[in-house]
Each structure stands twice: as C-alpha cells, then as structure tokens.
C-alpha cells in the first residue's frame, strides 16, 4: 500500500513544544477510533500555541479521520491560530487530493516550518 505500514498500531499522542503543540497520529485512521483523534485534536487548541498534526506514519485515513482534521482547521480559523499538517504520508496526501482538500490545509515538512508559517 502507498505510504505507512498497514500493521502499524493505531495511536495518537501529544507533544507540547516551545510555542507549538504537535499531535502525532499513526496507523489506520478510521471510524473505529477517529472520535479519539477528534478529541485530542480539539484539545490541542486549549492554549494559544500553533497546532500541528504529524501524519508521516499514517497508512490509511478515511473520511471520518479527514473530518477530524477539518474540524481542527475550523477551530484554528475561529481562534486565529496557526494550524498545519506535518509531513503527511503518501496515503494521506492521496486522500486529501481526492477530497480536493490538499490546497485547503497548510502542509509543512516539520515543526520548524510550522512555527515559521505565518
């Protein structure tokens, strides 16, 4: 399959850095746990740091996973916060393109780029 490893375990974790919160996803983001993803993404907006969603280890994402990302984007816009997808895998990019959302999200290579993007 394109990008990611289909056997990677599903996980979501959060890293609080200097001026940013990074939500790290791995595995196959689908309906079975996309609500957990949504909660962690929305919680990342509690402070006033920039929010990045790290997606390099995501082997699959369905529309419910994309919906969680879209909610994050809406939250960022409402609060005037920086928000970007960090290093999305080919599998994620393919679905974003298919959904015509690849130009809607800011996509950056790493957290430095996230902080630099204004």
């Amino acid at each position, binding site marked *: *399959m*394109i990008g990611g490893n*289909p056997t990677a375990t599903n996980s979501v974790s959060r890293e609080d850095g200097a001026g940013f919160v990074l939500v790290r996803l791995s595995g*196959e983001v*689908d*309906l*079975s746990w996309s609500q957990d993803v949504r909660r962690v993404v929305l919680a990342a907006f509690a402070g006033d740091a920039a929010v990045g969603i790290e997606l390099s280890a995501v082997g*699959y994402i*369905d*529309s*419910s996973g*994309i*919906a969680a990302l*879209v*909610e994050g*984007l*809406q939250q960022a816009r409402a609060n005037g916060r920086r928000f970007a997808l960090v290093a999305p895998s080919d*599998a994620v990019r*393919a*679905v974003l393109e*298919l*959904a*015509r*959302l690849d*130009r*809607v999200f800011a996509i950056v290579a790493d957290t430095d780029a996230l902080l630099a993007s204004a």
Partner: protein
Amino acid sequence: MTTARQRIAAAHAPPRVREADALAFLADLSRSLAVSLDLRETLPRTITQVRDFLDVEGIALFLLDAATQVLECKVSAGPVDVTGLRLAVGQGIVGRAVAEDATQLVADASADSRVWRAADETTGFVTRSIVCAPLRTAAGPIGVIEIVNRRDGKPFTDVDAELLDLVAAPAALAINNARMAGALLEQQRLKREFDLARHLQKSLLPRRRRDAFPVIGVNRPAHEISGDFYDYFELADGRIGFVVGDISGKGLDAALLMVRAASLLRWAGKDGLAPSAWLARANDELCETARDGRFVCALVGYVDRAATRVQFAGAGFPPVVVHRDGRYTGHVAGGPPLGILRGIAFESHDVALDGGTFYAFSDGATDVRDAAGQPIGLAGMRALIARHARDTPQARLRGLLGDLKRLRLVDDTTLLLIEAPQAEHPELLLARTLPARAEAMRELRAELRATFDEHGIEPRLRDRLVLAVDEACTNIIRHGYGPECEGAIALRVLRSDATLGIELVDDAPAVDPASIKPGTLGDCRCGGLGVALIDEVMDEWRIEPAEDGCGNRLVLRKRIETWACEEADES
C-alpha cells in the same frame, strides 16, 4: 597476395603494371565497392576502370543464378556488348571457372577447343586470349569476371591471371554484401506486409458483443497470420448465424483464401438457408475459384437468442462438444471440406442445449500436444472444459486458451462457445460477511487490497477503491444500523467483463435513496464527504431494497482499464 606481388615485380621488366599502381588501384576499387549497395550503378563504372587498368580490350561480369545454375552477363565493356549472354555452369571458359571454382587462363584461344566462339562468329570479333576468375564467397562462387585480349596484342600470362584474381575478391564481397542487404530489405518489406495482413484479418473477426449474446469466440494465430476465423451475425428473424473456419496450409495465400472464405460463408448464411444448404452453396462457389489443392474446413449454424437449440452442419471440421450437467456429448458434423468437389450434399444437425454449452474448436486446439508429445484430442479438450466449467463464458474461453498456450500451440486455434446468455454472469472475486462494526473494517481493507492486487489493479486505483468500499461500509454502519443496532454486511466483489462491481447487502431499515446526498469536494465542512469520495472514485453507484424485501443493497461499479486492455487482447 605476396606471391602475386612478387610475380608482378619479377615477371615484367619493365613491369606492365607497377606494383605500387596495382595496390593503389585495388585499394581504390575495394573502397568504392565496399560503400556501394546499389550495384547497378557501381558495377558498370568498376568494370570500365578494371578494363582500363588491366589494359585489355573486353571485360564482362557474369552472375550465377543459384536456382537454375545459369550464368548471365550483367555488365560488360568492350567492342562487343555481351550483356544478357547466358551460359550454363561448365560451358565455355566462363562456365569452367565456376564449375572448377578456379581461375582459368587461356593464353592462345584459337588453339583451345573449350573456348565458346558463338559471339565471335556473329560479330567478327576475334578472341585471342582469355582469363576468367570466379567471384568467390564462403558459400561457393557467385559469378565470374572475364577479360579478353590484351591491348598490346600479347597473350595473357600468370601475372594477368593473378591480377584478375585480386580484382575479383573485392567484387565478390561487394556483390555478396549487396545481395544480403537486399535480402534484409525484402524481409523488412515482407514483415510490414504481414503486419498489415494480420491487422486486416483481425478486423474481419466480429466485435465482441457487450449485450446478452449467446455466441463468443477467440482466435489465436500460431504465426503472424491466421488461417482460422470465426464470425457471427444476426438474421432478420432474430436467429444468430455463426461460422468457424480453418484454411488448409499456412502463409499469405492461405490467409487470402481465408478472407475470401470468410466473406463467402457470411454471404451464404445471410438468407437463413438450412446449414446443409448453406455449406453446399459456399462449397460450389469455392470450387469455382479454389486452386493449388487448398481447401476450407468449416462449421456453420444458427442459434436462437436464448440458446435453446443449435442447428449446425460441418465440412471437414472436428466434432463439436455439448456440455450439460457435467456430461459431455460429442457430435460429429460430417461432410468433406469445402472447395474440393462441386455438388456435394451436407447434413444438418440439431441439438437442444437446455442450459448446456456448445463448444466448437478448430483442429489447432485438439492438435495441441500434451507433456508426452501426444495431441490432447477431444478427451483432452473435455478435461480442459471441465477445469473451467464454473467460470463465466468469457473467463472460460480465456482459461481454455491460456491452458492450450501452456501446452504449446502448434497451429492456429479458434474456439467458439454458445450458451444461454445470463443477464449478469459475473466472476466472483471475493465474498465475505462482516459484522457491521467499525472495528471490522481494517481487516476488510487488507482483504480488499489483496484481492485487487491479485487481479492486477494498479496500487493507486486499488487504494481509491478500498477507500470507496470502506466509506460505503461505514455509511451503512453509521447511518443504516446506527449506534445501537447490531447487524452484518454481506460483501461481494465481482468482475463482469472489464467492470468491477461491489455489492453490499445489509438488513438495516430501508434507506430512502433520495436522502443520501454527497457533500461538495473541497468544501471545508464536515458531512457528506464519504459519499462525495465514493462519487469521485466510482463510475456509478445505486442503492435499492434488498431482494427479500428487508434491508438494502448498495452496488458500486467501476470500469477497470487494465481489464479492458486484457480483453481487447483476447478478442
């Protein structure tokens, strides 16, 4: 060459031809001959140069026709034009040079009875002295170069003979090269013509019908072009006429007869005559023109659209096989091949298919050899049919042809199959029932990926299809069954021709198709994205009540281009 040079230097004082001049001349001659592929232009010039260099009155170049063993003068220069003169191998000094593959020196021609004098007698020319050198190649002499009479009036010597020998070598090489180049061009021209013929032949085969049609065929030539063909067409009364033919012999003339026979058999069948009369009419026509002992084996017949009965007649064609309920019945469709004897009667046969399948195959199929080198015969064909009996008609023909190819096809092979058309007769790629729970989706996706890989769907499209099926399932889980409800989804992945079908059946409350609306792609709002993705990936989808009146049936379809190419390859 050393010997010749030494002799040139030693025999003449002062030498008639200086060594340095001779070498320069030979080098020049070799160069101009080596770069020439058009000898009609190069040879006359070369011959004249050689005549002047050797300072002789006449010179002629003869080439040997390998088939007739006749030497013909292609170019000459001198007081008598002998171009076109023909001599047998062994005739005269020229013929002797070839027969013995050795240079001939006749110092005094008047004293030699072997000299062929006919030309002298008609022209008044006097042949005093002759040297003939064969044009040698690895495959033997291909001609002769002859010089007549030194201009200084003296007889030819060994030195002259050896000089001519030296001239003959590059000439032979050049002529041989040009012939090989010509043969190569001829081969390329033939290949182009064969490609064209194959293309034309292929275009004569009927197009595969996409609708519910009872007759399908495949044709696989063993070489560039085929002597086999099949055809089918509809009559005004709704019946379908079919033809399978096999021309005796191979090659371009067999292929041309095939074109004629194919159009003749189609024409003769359009009136709906009984199959026996149809063959008799085609036979009489073919007898008027068929030559060279070529003949045509053919099977013709009619079938109704529902394929309940087949009427047929054969002319030198292998028996047909009817397969029904696991039983195979052979039907010998007697009668001699077409194009041999006028006024022959043929016999019509009639078989009820009753849901069975009618197979006709040219002898290319039954002549295929098994591992022991024996033709597999009808018994072998039955075994092969049994192997693929569960497949759809198209997949069955594909499988049969694949097996025959593995067994080594030695002849053109044509298979024709008649069977009641199924409204939908798809090939089942995957069937699975899964609990309607989001946790079941990961395993299903892995299974779908493996299935799509196995059937040659490229990764990018595979991943999109997996996404679309996943979205369809999660929609059923979320909106069909809802959070409280337990249920199952029955999934079937099907192939019908080049179309992939995905069928999802649930027993959730009936869904109003009008209530399902896709969102807009690129829209930054949630909701409707799953359906929009399905829309984007699939060619078509629809939801309808399941057959037993409870639950829903969702069908997704996508045309797979790589499958379409496979099929185009086979028809």
